[in-house]
């Protein structure tokens, strides 16, 4: 047990910090996300700069354009990015989900075609999993893929798809066997978002902005070479995607919460905080540290055994609820000013936006209800509820 960086880790961290200091444009630091993050060329340029510096796909094998680095580098990268308040690479779906799935299940041709442009932010990916009738219960997918002339014809509707309005490709979970139900008969496809019959409609969120979209597929032709895995094995392929969704993500979330709490402390200094609010601040700081060291424990086990420790499965759950409490505490400290809109609220409406946005945290990337089921059933070994 040694909680300090090794000299090698410290060197990587120091080089990254100075790279960020030199290269992160001032107007991008602290960028709050939301719809505006997609507008203009800045985010692609920033993503490309990260790629050119070798910080994208750190843990991917070198043969696919990755860094071939151990997981601790990825953890340090995510921590330092969040601490510098640097916006993430625009291709988060590609890097975190599509890429690892293609590496695990793709053909050599697919790997050669898709991986490098995805890392360099030349091509953006989105995910087509959830449907109006299939949310947490993903096995209810109904979007159909009819096998026809050696390819597929796709019809259906996907929803909650971030980046779809700027995406070039979609990882799409379809039902290829109309007679099948649940986990059987699903097929995983790579769909060109510019193909005829693909329509994207942004959804307006409670923040007023649009980060995610509906996607409609009307007789969209998908060539056979865009099949990922085998026809009928879509569920197994999709599980690879979801495994990666929750991988080292915990480090980015924890570090973002650390920044959020740092701002909360600054707010308390600025506006004053009563005894109960101070108690809340300390409570959230303690829990944030607990998440941090829980991530370290899980990562250490991953580094030693190749499998992350089970305790890592609680990171997202604890982070999401923590971020909701932190942002609400900030509104409480703001007092009556909390009701003001973006135009005249203190701090440019930062906390009002953050608090509303945080309500999505316990829904996106696995609802808290599903995550508690996962802990109960897969970690604690309690009987399956379904």
């Amino acid at each position, binding site marked *: *047990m*040694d*909680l*300090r*960086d*090794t*000299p090698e*880790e*410290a060197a990587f*961290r*120091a080089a990254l910090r100075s790279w960020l200091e030199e290269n992160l444009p001032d107007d991008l630091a602290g960028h709050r996300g939301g719809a505006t993050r997609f507008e203009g060329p800045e985010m692609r340029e920033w993503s490309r700069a990260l790629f050119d510096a070798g910080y994208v796909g750190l843990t991917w094998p070198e043969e696919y354009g990755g860094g071939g680095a151990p997981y*601790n580098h990825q953890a340090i990268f995510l921590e330092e990015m969040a*601490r510098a308040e640097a916006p993430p690479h625009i291709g988060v779906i590609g890097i975190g989900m599509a890429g690892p799935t293609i590496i695990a299940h793709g053909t050599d041709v697919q790997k050669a075609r898709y991986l490098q442009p995805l890392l360099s932010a030349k091509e953006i990916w989105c995910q087509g999993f959830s449907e109006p009738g299939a949310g947490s219960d993903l096995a209810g997918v109904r979007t159909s893929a009819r096998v026809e002339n050696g390819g597929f014809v796709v019809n259906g509707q996907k929803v909650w798809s971030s980046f779809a309005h700027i995406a070039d490709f979609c990882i799409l979970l379809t039902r290829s066997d109309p007679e099948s139900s649940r986990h059987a008969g699903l097929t995983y496809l790579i769909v060109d978002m510019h193909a005829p019959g693909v329509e994207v409609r942004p959804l307006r969120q409670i923040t007023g902005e649009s980060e995610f979209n509906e996607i409609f597929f009307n007789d969209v032709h998908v060539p056979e070479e865009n099949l990922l895995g085998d026809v009928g094995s879509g569920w197994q392929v999709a599980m690879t995607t979801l495994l990666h969704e929750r991988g080292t993500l915990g480090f980015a979330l924890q570090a973002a919460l*650390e920044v959020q709490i*740092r701002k909360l*402390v600054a707010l*308390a*200094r600025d506006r004053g*905080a009563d*005894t109960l609010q*101070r*108690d809340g*601040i*300390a*409570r959230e*700081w*303690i*829990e944030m*540290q*607990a*998440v*941090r*060291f*829980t991530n*370290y*424990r899980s*990562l*250490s*086990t991953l*580094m*030693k055994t190749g499998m992350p420790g089970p*305790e890592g499965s*609680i990171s997202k*759950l*604890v982070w999401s609820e923590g971020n909701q409490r932190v942002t609400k505490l900030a509104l409480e400290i703001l007092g009556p000013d909390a009701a003001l809109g973006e135009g005249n609220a203190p701090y440019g409406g930062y906390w009002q936006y953050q608090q509303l946005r945080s309500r999505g945290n316990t829904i996106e990337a696995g609802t808290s*209800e599903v995550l*508690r*089921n996962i*802990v*109960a*059933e897969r*970690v*604690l*070994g*309690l*009987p*399956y*509820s379904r």
Partner: protein
Amino acid sequence: MDFTFTPEQEALREQAREFLAANPEPTWAQLAELGWTGVSIAEEEGGAGLTFVEEAVLFEELGRALYHGPFFATVGLSLPALGAEDRAAVAAGEASWTLALGPLVPDLDTAAHVAIVGGDGIYELEGGEREILETTDTSRPLGVVRGGEAGRRLADSTVLTAIETRSRTALALEACGIARAALEDALEYASSREQFGKKIGVYQAVSHPLADAYTHVELSRSLALWAAWCVANDDPQAAIAGAAAKSYAGESAVQVCETAIQALGGIGFTWEHRLHRLYKRALWIESFGASGTALRAEIAASLIEEKTASGTSPAPVTVAQGG
């Protein structure tokens, strides 16, 4: 960065768990024979020359086993006040200690020697009478000392800061052992008890509180082990880590026990089941020294006013570089 135990530390945990299962009421001499009383005492003083991280393993296991004896008072509280000869006697199992930081003194029924704080020093108490008080947790009695006088000077009172952090961390570790044991009882019951034709663990009204109990157990453990590593390495963040660990793990142990009692229904409310003993130890830990609320007030001051929490630099976020 490596946040795993070594194979030797894992072996120590296994040894401790097996020994305490076979010997639920071990004597001080037995603990000394196992080398537990001198884990962090130097080899030339008869100890094992290891660190507080190994002691952390023992605190967790002794908490889990609801051990009754002077291990916490000696190793978790008094050790930093003892000189070389006294440490050697502890390692050899010839002496045990407790330290009177307030009117209620822990392990006074089993500790051989009592240390008291006076002026700028810590002294051995000479003479005086001990009265052992009835406590809710009968495995960890408190007592009061009447009369007596300051005898041998043991240490400068500047060591009290280190003692405070060490004892908070030790109790946080005990709390982790308690909470884990309570969670295991609840999981076993929820996996076997049937109602409405199903194992009750199927129902999310039962399983989700247990999932939350698990998060409390693991977050507690992460904080307590962070604090333990800081104590072992004299890290500048030791004080704030110890405060965070006791605040979170103490309250969490109480809460996890309550969740477990509820999950076991009537059985959990009986005298016969061990849950109430785990619960009472958790409540003891929460009440001893500073409570979770008091510790958070310290931490808030250190974060907001950038005052030091118990004398350490606030430096709340960065892991030390190098090493």
